[in-house]
C-alpha cells in the first residue's frame, strides 16, 4: 500500500462546551490523520462529536466552546492557534465545507452564478468577469444542465438535488485541499443521493481534493470511503481501511452499528440493536463510555478507558476485548459472516 502523505493531522483534541447545566465534554482526546487524495469517513450518531470535530477544523465552533487540549496541523500551521482573519483566508480556499440542508446553505436572494463566483473573487482576487466565466465552467462540471442560462437563476428555481450540486460547486471552485462534507446527502432522496455521491467521487479525482465525509449511514460509507473512523461519545473507538472496518470490525459498537442495518438479505426476526441511548457527556461515565450499552463489557470497562489496540498497521480499535488477558468473545452471527469473508479474500 502506497504511503500517502498526511495533509491534516489532528492530535489529542479535547473540546468542552460550557452550558447552563455544566460543562459538556464533547470531544475527549481524539487523534486522526487525513491523507492526500483519500476520503476519510467519520461515522457516529447524534452526540458522538463528529460535527464538533469538523467545525473545529474550520474554526466554526460556538463561542462557548473551549479547546482544552490538542492541535490540528495543516499546511505547517496549527489551526487552533490561528485568529479569525487567518482562518477566513483558509475557509473557502484551502478548506471548504458543504452541509446537510441545501435549502438553507444557499443565499435565497443571490443569483447562483454570483454565489459560485464569490469565493474566486475573495480568495483569488479575480475580476467579476473572469470569476463568472470560471463559475460557469464549475456549474457545468457539477452537472447543471443549460448552465449558460441557469447561471442567472435563483436558488428557489432549483430542486434539492440541483441545489446540493450548486453547493458543491461553490465549495470546490477554489480547488481546496480539503473538502469537509457534513451529511451532504442525508436530506436527499435515495436516487438523488446516489447521483450526488457519484458526482463527488468524480470531482475528487478531477480536483485532487481530500474529503472528510461525515455520516451515520454505513451504506454511504461503504461506497465513498477509503478509511473510516468510528466515533462514540466524543472518542474515536475504531479506525481502519474501509475493508477492515466492514469485514473485520473489532469494537462491539461497530458490531452493533453494522448489525442494526438490515441488508437486502437480512432474514432475522429480531434486528440486533444496541439497547439504550448514548451517555450524557456532562458527566461522562468512568471507563469505557460504551459499557452501559455493551453486552460484551468486562469489569475493567467500568474502571478504565481502553487504549487503542493494534489489529494491523492500518487498523486500531479501543476495546479491552483485544487485550491479551481478555476472554475470547464470539461476535454476533452477521459479524462472523463478515469476518469469514474477510479471511477468505485475504488469502485469495
Amino acid at each position, binding site marked *: 500500500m502506497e504511503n500517502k502523505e498526511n495533509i491534516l493531522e489532528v492530535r489529542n483534541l479535547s473540546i468542552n462546551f460550557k452550558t447552563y447545566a455544566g460543562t459538556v465534554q464533547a470531544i475527549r482526546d481524539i487523534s486522526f490523520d487525513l491523507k492526500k487524495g483519500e476520503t476519510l469517513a467519520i461515522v457516529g450518531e*447524534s452526540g458522538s462529536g463528529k460535527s464538533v470535530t469538523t467545525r473545529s477544523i474550520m474554526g466554526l465552533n460556538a463561542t462557548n466552546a473551549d479547546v482544552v487540549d490538542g492541535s490540528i496541523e495543516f499546511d505547517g500551521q496549527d489551526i487552533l492557534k490561528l485568529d479569525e482573519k487567518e482562518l477566513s483566508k483558509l475557509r473557502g480556499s484551502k478548506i471548504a465545507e458543504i452541509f446537510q440542508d441545501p435549502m438553507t446553505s444557499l443565499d435565497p436572494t443571490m443569483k447562483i452564478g454570483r454565489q459560485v463566483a464569490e469565493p474566486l473573487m475573495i480568495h483569488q482576487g479575480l475580476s467579476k468577469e473572469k470569476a463568472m466565466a470560471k463559475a460557469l465552467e464549475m456549474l457545468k462540471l457539477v452537472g447543471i444542465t443549460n448552465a449558460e442560462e441557469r447561471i442567472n437563476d435563483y436558488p428557489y428555481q432549483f430542486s434539492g438535488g440541483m441545489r446540493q450540486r450548486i453547493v458543491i460547486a461553490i465549495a470546490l471552485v477554489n480547488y481546496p485541499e480539503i473538502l469537509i462534507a457534513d451529511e451532504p446527502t442525508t436530506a436527499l432522496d435515495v436516487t438523488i443521493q446516489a447521483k450526488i455521491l457519484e458526482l463527488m467521487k468524480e470531482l475528487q479525482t478531477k480536483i485532487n481534493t481530500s474529503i472528510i465525509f461525515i455520516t451515520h449511514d454505513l*451504506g454511504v460509507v461503504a461506497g465513498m470511503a477509503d478509511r473510516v473512523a468510528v466515533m462514540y461519545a466524543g472518542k474515536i473507538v475504531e479506525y481502519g481501511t474501509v*475493508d477492515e472496518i466492514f469485514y473485520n470490525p473489532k469494537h462491539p459498537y461497530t458490531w452493533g452499528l453494522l448489525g442494526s442495518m438490515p441488508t*437486502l438479505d437480512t432474514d432475522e426476526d429480531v*434486528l440486533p*440493536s444496541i439497547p439504550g441511548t448514548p451517555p450524557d457527556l456532562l458527566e461522562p461515565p468512568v471507563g469505557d463510555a460504551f459499557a452501559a450499552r455493551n453486552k460484551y463489557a468486562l469489569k475493567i470497562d467500568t474502571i478504565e478507558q481502553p487504549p487503542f489496540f493494534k489489529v494491523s498497521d492500518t487498523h486500531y480499535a479501543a476495546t479491552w476485548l483485544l487485550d491479551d488477558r481478555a476472554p475470547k468473545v464470539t461476535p454476533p452471527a452477521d459479524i462472523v459472516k463478515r469476518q469469514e469473508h474477510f479471511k477468505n479474500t485475504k488469502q485469495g
Partner: protein
Amino acid sequence: MLDKDAPKILEVKNLKQYFNVGRKDEVRAVDDITFNVHEGETFGLVGESGSGKTTTGRAISHLYEPTGGEIIFEGKDVSKLKTKKDEKEFRSDIQTIFQDPYASLNPRMKVKDIIAEGIDINHLAKDKADRDAQVEELLETVGLNKEHANRYPHEFSGGQRQRIGIARALAVKPKFIIADEPISALDVSIQAQVVNLLKDLQKKRKLTYLFIAHDLSMVKYISDRIGVMHYGRMLEIADADELYAHPLHDYTRSLLSAVPVPDPEFERQREIVDYDASVESDGKQRKLVEIAPNHYVRAADDEIQMYKDRLNS
C-alpha cells in the same frame, strides 16, 4: 405474519387527494391509487419525496377529506361516518405514529398527559389512579421508565420521543397503526430499537401496520407486502421478498439500484439504473395489472407482455 386468507381490514379504491383544486397551483398529491391491507400484515408504502405516501396515510386516517375515491375501513366508508359513536370508534381503531419526534409531542405537556390524551377522550380510565396505572404500563411496554411520566418532551432523545409517540398511539388500543416514516429522523442504532419494538407489539397485540418509508432496506425487513409510489401513483405492489428479487417497474428497479449497502465490495461494482419519469405522462392509459400471482404493476395494455418477459428472464 401474512395470512393470505385474513380478511381485508383496509381497502383503498381509486383514492384521489388534490390540493388547490382547479387553481393554477393545483397539486395532485395522490392521483388514483388502489390497494388493500389484510388483518395482521405489515404493508410497506415506499416512495421518495413528492410521491404522495404521507398524504395517503393522512387521508386514510381522515385528517384530510378525500377529493375522490373510497377508503373502506373494516367495511365502513371512512368519509361517510355519520354518528359521533362511529367517529370515535374509528379514531380509536386507527392510530398514527408520526415522523418528527421533535414536533409530534406538545412541548408544554407532561409525558403522562401526552400519552393519556386518548384515554381521556374515550373515557377509558375509571379514575386518576387507573389513568396513571395505564400510563405506567404503556411506558414500560415501550421500554421507558415510569419516572419519565412527569418529564417534558425536550428532556428526551429522538428515539425515546418516538417511543412516547408509540405509547400514545397504543393507549386507545387500536387495531391498525399508520406509521408515517417513524424512523427516518432517528440514528441508525435507534432505528433498529424502534423497529424491533414495533414488530414485538404487532405480535403481542395483533396489530396491522401501514409502514410508510423511504428507507428501502428497513421497509423490506419489516413488511410483508410493499407498494411503490411515485408522483401520486401506485406503480408496483408485491410481496416484500418478491419485489426485491424481481422488481418489474423501471422506477422500482431504479430505486433499488440506488440503495447504499454496507458492503464495500458490493458498492464498488454497483451501477445505478436511471429512471426517466417523463414516461408517466405520455398519455397512455395505465392501471394495476397482475403480472404474476400477487405481483401487480401499473401498465398500459401494450406493456403487459414486456413485464411478463422481464419476470421470466
